[in-house]
């Protein structure tokens, strides 16, 4: 089980993010939960391309026959991080609009039905 420790960290981050989205009633806390969920998914992507005892895939000043980590998962994680920043900017601007219209950030004062 110690050999799978990064994967258990990914599961922990996803569970914490899902708990915050489901059970908190403040809009900013829900947005923080979405960001934690996305950090967990990015961590999962980059732990898939590691080989034991490898170095970064840079050829400057390194011997050319060293064992190197895989570069393709790192490139896809870069794309995922930028898309996460874009979605976060859109969510925050909509929250600013909602706050100016209703005057409160609590979910019970925003909707129409009561539960």
């Amino acid at each position, binding site marked *: 089980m110690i050999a799978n420790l990064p994967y258990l960290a990914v599961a922990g981050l996803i569970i914490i993010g899902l708990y915050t989205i489901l059970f908190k009633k403040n809009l900013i806390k829900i947005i923080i939960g979405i960001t934690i969920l996305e950090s967990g998914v990015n961590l999962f992507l980059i732990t898939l391309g590691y080989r034991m005892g490898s170095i*970064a895939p*840079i*050829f*400057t*000043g*390194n*011997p*050319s026959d060293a064992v190197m980590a895989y570069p393709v998962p790192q490139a896809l994680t*870069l794309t995922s991080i*930028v898309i996460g*920043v874009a979605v976060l*900017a859109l969510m*925050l*601007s909509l929250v*600013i609009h909602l706050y*100016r*219209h209703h005057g409160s950030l609590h979910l019970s004062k925003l909707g129409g039905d009561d539960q």
Partner: protein
Amino acid sequence: MKGMSTIVKTIANISFPLITIYGLYVIAHGHLTPGGGFQGGAIVATGLVMLIVAHGSDWMEEHIKEHDLSIFESLGALGFIGLAFLGILMGGVFFSNFLVDTTMLFGGIPVDGAANINTGGTLPLMNFAVGLKVIAGLFAIVLVMALATSKKEEHL
């Protein structure tokens, strides 16, 4: 929002060129060291946001309009697409690296692990285009949000 005290403004004015030079170094050496267009663009945008925090968004609105930022971002996007289409004209496929192994601008192949900036083909040019796009985009997002939360608007 209002600005901060004189000490903060002076230190921000001193460190802004250093942050910009460091960010441009990370963009320009993207094909030799870890870094590239997106990472260096985020560094320069952070320096610009530090200027907003130190001087206040009212001062910033007098000096930079959002209309100028959209010109920079469109230039970056058009440069990236233009390089991709130029690959069809000169190489045959979309996105082909037509400058490597020639005697033109960035042609050259690194020998035996030594770092030479005259290598890489179209990669440094694409790094500059994407870096310009990221700088203008991230700075425009933060500037628009700072302006919107500071004015005393009446009810929508």
